[in-house]
């Protein structure tokens, strides 16, 4: 049974001001209804005035996704009543969107490249937000701070074949948006998704308003199971709108009333048609993820996997380029594998890490002043300091203070003797040809010497010592 998925993605554009007025978009953590004016409150008589920057951001995305920008596009009113919708209509684009017909390249489930077609992208305003106070208050509160935040709605063709593909598409799209500098990935609710999913030949179900990438994969996975089970039992999939219940990882049927909506779209008479096709040529695109990934492989000689990871986030890619000069391949391993793992563990952002310190650390590793194990120890100390908001000590100082300089060969003879003597069973196992026994012994020596020796070298020393007959 073939799964067919199409997405509608609402992206909050990171302009300084709202789509149709001068109110600041940076309202997070501020009191409700403090970023409002007659326009975004929909006061009688107020008129919308289009934010040029939002149009430029939309066109940037259009260009990056290889879209066509029609000579003329148009704003329309989408009419419906809801307390968070100040004017009782949303200004959006309907028949004549800003841009049409683009593509995004992703990997399919077999790891092959595939194209997801983009149907259209259009500008619209975000509504306000209803706040329901816990404990069964008889009021709902309305916060219009979000009212008028510019959104770019990007609609795909039904080109994805699994929930995993949908997630990969979203990751790819988010990366492109971040590269373009039109979207702040750290904003909560900055990207919201409606997903259409069907089994080939069956009715389509729309899952509305999913607010995280993981949520999209979860909701779609749930739907695949639900729809397949229905069909297996000989039942039909109903064409309907469903809501994703994030906490439980399930979707539930929305009331049919909502589907019967007639939005009575018509061109907004307050806004003249938009003629901006001529702006596209002048837009300078930054190097996009695919190009940067290819350049990283060619310029730095690093693996596809490392290049993919490092270019998956523009800030991470910039960080890598700031430390790559020490030794590109070693730097790629340390940034993409070690550093990223440590950051995830601490839920830290790469922005909090001083690149020059990491460059110094990589230099110490390259000159074999310290071992990898000691490198990890130093890295952790530095990150802990950064996370606590303390100044980040130079790695050389930590090495000095902690005495982590790589040991010279003869330095561990005593430790080796001691470990071998204390573990006769392991020695016997080693002699019996069990590989794990040597690793165990080396581990014991590492522990005693706090990682100051290179484990490969230690392996050689320990085995030679036993082979020489030492017990």
């Amino acid at each position, binding site marked *: 049974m073939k799964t067919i998925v199409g997405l509608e993605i609402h992206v909050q554009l990171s302009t300084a001001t709202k789509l149709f007025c001068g109110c600041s978009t940076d309202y997070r953590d501020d009191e409700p209804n403090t970023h409002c004016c*007659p326009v975004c*409150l*929909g*006061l*009688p*008589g*107020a*008129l*919308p*005035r*289009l934010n040029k920057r939002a149009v430029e951001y939309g066109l940037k995305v259009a260009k990056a996704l290889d879209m066509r920008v029609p000579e003329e596009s148009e704003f329309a*009113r989408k*009419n419906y*009543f809801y*307390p968070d919708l*100040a*004017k*009782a*209509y949303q200004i959006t684009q309907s028949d004549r969107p800003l841009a049409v017909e683009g593509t995004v390249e992703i990997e399919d489930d077999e790891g092959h490249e595939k194209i997801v077609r983009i149907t259209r992208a259009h500008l619209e305003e975000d509504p306000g937000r209803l706040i329901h106070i816990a404990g069964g208050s*008889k*009021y*709902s509160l*309305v916060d219009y701070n979000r009212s008028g935040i510019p959104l770019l709605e990007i609609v795909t063709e039904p080109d994805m074949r699994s929930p995993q593909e949908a997630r990969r598409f979203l990751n790819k799209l988010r990366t492109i948006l971040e590269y373009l500098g039109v979207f702040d990935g750290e904003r909560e609710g900055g990207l919201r998704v409606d997903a259409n999913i069907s089994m080939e030949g069956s009715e389509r179900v729309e899952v509305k308003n999913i607010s995280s990438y993981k949520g999209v994969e979860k909701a779609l996975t749930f739907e695949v199971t639900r729809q397949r089970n229905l069909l297996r039992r000989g039942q039909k999939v109903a064409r309907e709108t469903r809501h994703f219940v994030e906490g439980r990882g399930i979707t539930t049927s929305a009331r049919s009333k909502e589907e019967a909506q*007639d939005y*009575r*779209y*018509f061109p907004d*008479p*307050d*806004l*003249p048609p938009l003629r901006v096709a001529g702006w596209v040529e002048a837009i300078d695109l930054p190097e996009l993820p695919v190009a940067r990934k290819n350049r990283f492989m060619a310029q730095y000689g690093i693996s596809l996997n490392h290049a993919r990871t490092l270019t998956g986030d523009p800030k991470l890619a910039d960080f890598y380029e700031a430390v790559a000069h020490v030794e590109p391949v070693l730097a790629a391993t340390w940034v993409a594998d070690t550093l990223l793992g440590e950051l995830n563990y601490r839920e830290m952002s790469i922005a909090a890490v001083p690149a020059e310190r990491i460059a110094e650390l990589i230099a110490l590793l390259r000159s074999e002043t310290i071992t990898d194990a000691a490198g990890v120890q130093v890295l952790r100390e530095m990150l802990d300091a950064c996370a606590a908001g303390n100044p980040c000590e130079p790695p050389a100082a930590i090495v000095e203070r902690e005495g982590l300089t790589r040991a010279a060969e003869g330095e561990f003879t005593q430790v080796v003797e001691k470990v071998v003597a204390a573990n006769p069973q392991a020695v016997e196992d080693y002699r019996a040809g069990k590989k794990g026994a040597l690793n165990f012994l080396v581990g014991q020596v590492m522990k005693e010497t706090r990682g100051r020796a290179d484990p490969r070298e230690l392996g050689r020393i320990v085995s030679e010592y036993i082979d020489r007959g030492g017990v």
Partner: protein
Amino acid sequence: MAGTLDFSPDDRYNAFITTCAEAPFGDGPLAGTAVAVKDNISTAGIRTTCGSKILDGYVPPYDAHVVDLLRRAGAAIVGKTNMDEFGMGSTTETSAFGPTRNPVDLTRVPGGSSGGSAAAVAAGLVPMALGTDTGGSIRCPAAFCGIAGLKPTYGRVSRYGLIAYANSLEQVGPMARTVEDVSRLMSVIAHYDPRDSTMLDRPYNHRPSAEVKGLRIGIPEEYFGEGVDPRVGESVRDAIGVLEGLGAETVPVSIPGMRHALAAYYVICTSEASSNLARFDGVRYGPAVDTRKSWHEAYQDLRRELLGAEVRRRIMLGTFALSAGYAGQYYAKAQVARRKIREDFGRALREADVIAGPTMPTVAFRLGEKTDPISMYLSDILTAPANLAGIPAISVPCGRVDGLPVGLQIMGRQFEDERVVDVAFAYEQEVRA
């Protein structure tokens, strides 16, 4: 120079919804001049109701652009004038604050929807007033009350702060006893405002000139046909004769699209209104919604109770005209008719410099006379076309029929407001002299 104007008019006409007993004023070309403002134009700190209960108690936190310009010109804003609820009417009888009476004959309507502004000027309570014109709402009451009123070219005056009825049709405009004062007030309010995206930067700085020699005046047969009181037509022809006496010539022109004008006009204005007026839900301003009900039910009840019958009728008409399955038949067709009318006027205004005809097909109705909505809608037949075409149109008094004023309407090319003012001025100067 700046000071306060005491304003306590003898308002027997119910021309005002709100008056300001002490109106502050500043320096400038209108220093100390009392100006009345129609109650659908936002005034910071002064209640603005649109003649509706649903906005009773609403005090805007900001000034409309035109009000800001008035204040900066030194004018004293002395009150807010009565109007048909949300501008929906041609008599000022649909106001939730009671009808306004025509100062010329208290048993007659002043016309509408800017009836309060027209009556205040005609009665001499103020020398000038702002009205708004969506389908004739400045020109109709100007004609009925015997004053002058200009509907500017669409895009010449900022709509920022004008509480929208039909955005693509309406303009704020000046009303006064003389064309000269209409022109003076126009010079104050017609300045570019980037907040209105449908506006062009074409300020009006003009002193009227009475020179009409060689002017070609187009006479459209449609403006003198069926439904037009022949005595009104006669007065207007006489007035055009006066202009000919001053050296103008007349040419016959035709606006065949006129037969679709009213239908197109009512579909477009009600469609836009159905969307514009949806925001009046009692959540943010006006009488508060009943929070004990579910929001959907509360909205319905509030709107049913606080919106008048004519407003509800037009909201329903517009909602229907935009509905899925019907929008093609109504909204889209109306746009086609509108384009046709625009083209007709474009052609006629290549053959002539201005077009002249009656403003209204009749003189002022008796209060309560128009009970059937269709016959009320028909009275907009001669004014609504200028709104559909976006062209400037002025009404200037030209004689009387049965002792009631008749209006001569002069329409011109887009952004040639100066020319229609000049023609009206030439006529006015000639008959006054």
